[in-house]
């Protein structure tokens, strides 16, 4: 009997190691959906890039309601996927519950911090990237008035707004920054009509560069800015192509890199907090054939200098989420 137990134990261990060695990674998208042209799509792009480069395969799922979060994580964990990457700040609470039940599986959460021994938390310094596009906005503005249009009014979006305002004021201390939020419900991420109206409202207050951090609502902002002949700034993914010549630049948030890194590290993914900022190409601004004529060498030089200063820690951009206040903007 004892021999049998040992044999059984050995075979189980073998099976487990075999399973672990062959474990595929998995990625879970947030409610915005895999093809949101922005945040989730960036996560998908990163996973896809890993699959193409390594020839590996990965599992993915998209949830349709908040109630499915815990279930989705457990499902992948039970099936032995490792590591499991989830994109979106809303995963924080369910992951905190689930992580302890699967100590052998590594989890990666993007945009939120979960304190557990088997979780890597990736957060982005959106305020740094927004600071750079704020500088560009102030330099491109003729009248010294620029706008910001956020999606849902949550601390994360205020972080974008606050970094942006600091960048604007760094270039032009007399500049006016007009900030509006689209709404307080998730519908605010998909209301391009209101985005357009907000854009018109800001233009009539004198704004000539408008930064949209608003998901699908931003489509309306970019469109109206193009129709009215003012500049706009895209967010998360590179949106320069959407209205060529009118989109001044885009604030890039390299969610794809975060997913790619986690997938490449596989089961050896390093746990703990990982901050993606300007120093490790986590955030930045987009420069491509669509906006190369809009960004002058002078602007480029100023932004490069600020990038170096922020990366080296010489210049500190205030993070709204650190103390829920903003020195440059009154919400």
């Amino acid at each position, binding site marked *: 009997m004892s021999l049998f137990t040992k044999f059984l134990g050995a075979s189980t261990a073998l099976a487990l190691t075999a399973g672990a060695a062959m474990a595929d990674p998995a990625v879970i998208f947030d409610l915005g*959906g*895999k*093809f*949101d*042209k922005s945040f989730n*799509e960036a996560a998908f792009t990163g996973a896809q890039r890993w699959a193409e480069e390594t020839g590996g395969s990965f599992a993915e799922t998209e949830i349709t309601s908040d109630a499915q979060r815990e279930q989705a994580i457990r499902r992948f964990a039970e099936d032995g996927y490792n590591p499991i990457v989830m994109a979106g700040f809303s995963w924080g609470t369910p992951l905190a519950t689930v992580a302890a039940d699967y100590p052998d599986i590594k989890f990666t959460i993007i945009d939120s911090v979960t304190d557990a021994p088997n979780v890597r938390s990736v957060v982005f310094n959106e305020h740094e990237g927004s600071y750079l596009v704020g500088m560009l906005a102030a330099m491109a503005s003729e009248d010294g008035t620029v706008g910001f249009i956020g999606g849902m009014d949550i601390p994360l979006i205020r972080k974008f707004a606050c970094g942006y305002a600091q960048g604007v004021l760094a270039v032009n201390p007399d500049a006016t920054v*007009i900030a*509006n*939020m689209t*709404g*307080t419900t998730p*519908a605010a991420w*998909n*209301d*391009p*009509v*209101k985005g*357009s*109206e*907000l854009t*018109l*409202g800001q*233009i*009539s*207050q*004198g704004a*000539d560069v408008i930064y949209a951090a608003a998901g*699908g609502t931003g*489509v*309306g902002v970019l*469109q109206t800015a193009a129709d*009215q*002949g*003012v500049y706009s700034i895209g967010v998360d993914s590179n949106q320069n192509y*959407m*209205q060529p010549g009118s989109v001044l630049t885009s604030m890039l948030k390299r969610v794809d890199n975060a997913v790619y890194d986690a997938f490449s590290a596989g089961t050896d993914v390093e746990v703990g907090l990982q901050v993606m900022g300007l120093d490790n190409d986590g955030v930045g601004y987009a420069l491509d054939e669509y906006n190369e004529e809009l960004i002058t060498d002078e602007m480029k030089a100023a932004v490069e200098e600020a990038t170096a200063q922020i990366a080296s820690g010489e210049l500190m951009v205030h993070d709204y989420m650190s103390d829920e206040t903003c020195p440059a903007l009154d919400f």
Partner: protein
Amino acid sequence: MDLLALFDIAVLDGTVRLAVPLLLACLAGLFSERAGVFDIGLEGKMLISAFFAAAVSFETGNVWIGLFAGIASSVVLSLLHGLASITFRGNQLISGVAINFFASGITVIAAQAWFGQGGRTPSLSGDARFDPIVFPGALTKIREIMKADWGMKVYSELLSGHTIIAYAAIFIVPLVWWVLYRTRFGLRLRAVGENPGAVDTAGISVQRMRYSAVIICGVLTGIAGAYLSTGIQAGFVREMTAGRGYIALAALIFAKWRPWYALGATLLFGYLQALAIRPDILERAIGIKVQTQVLDALPYVLTVIVLAGFVGKAIPPRAGGEAYVKER
């Protein structure tokens, strides 16, 4: 305190743009509900029309064909609602909810399968969207308008520069009033919503009257949806109606199911939405900073006040919500 600031031209201009889809959807609901068919599927019908209008406009390059495609898709959903609630005497609210869910899902799936751009259509340009109609001599860019004098502002911003649907919407209200109160069809339609038994006794088909009403409802929501995606926007984005169908329903109750009141209610709700865009103007006008959420909530608050009977009484059509069963 500068109460005149409340009548800022930019806000009034925004009111017109935002009130048009509400007005069309509200009048659509008015037809349906006056005939005794409750319709909470206005939102879904606007959404599906917004999608098909944008998709077909993009494919054909002609916004008018897009408009008709939008109207057709909305009428199909209307007929589905009619089939469930008139022919099969199902619960009208449940059918309406089902239409909303169906439209919300199918538009994203169809857009993804069709264009592969993540549940949206490509941006429309040129003849594929309704261009603003610019009056002779009017300015088009807001930055130029802001520098012009008051008369020019009114002319360029408030009067000129809307799409043809917005101008047409002005004439729809008297037309609806005339149809409802001055034609035989309108009398029968209203009667069907109050006392279908009496209409049936007079030898008029209740089912036919109600089907006509839901088809008219589909046409109007179709125009409203097409206005969103091809008039004030240049393309479809998932869930782009963002609750406007529900606000239109609230406006319908606020207007006590009457066409001219509907114009007033939707203009008021549109104005509140436009004012919420410009918190700076409100602050200048009343001297204190008001959270925009208050303005966003006001349409619903006002509707509840009306429903509670504080401002007159809102009495829905008596036979509303009930399927008509012919006595044997």
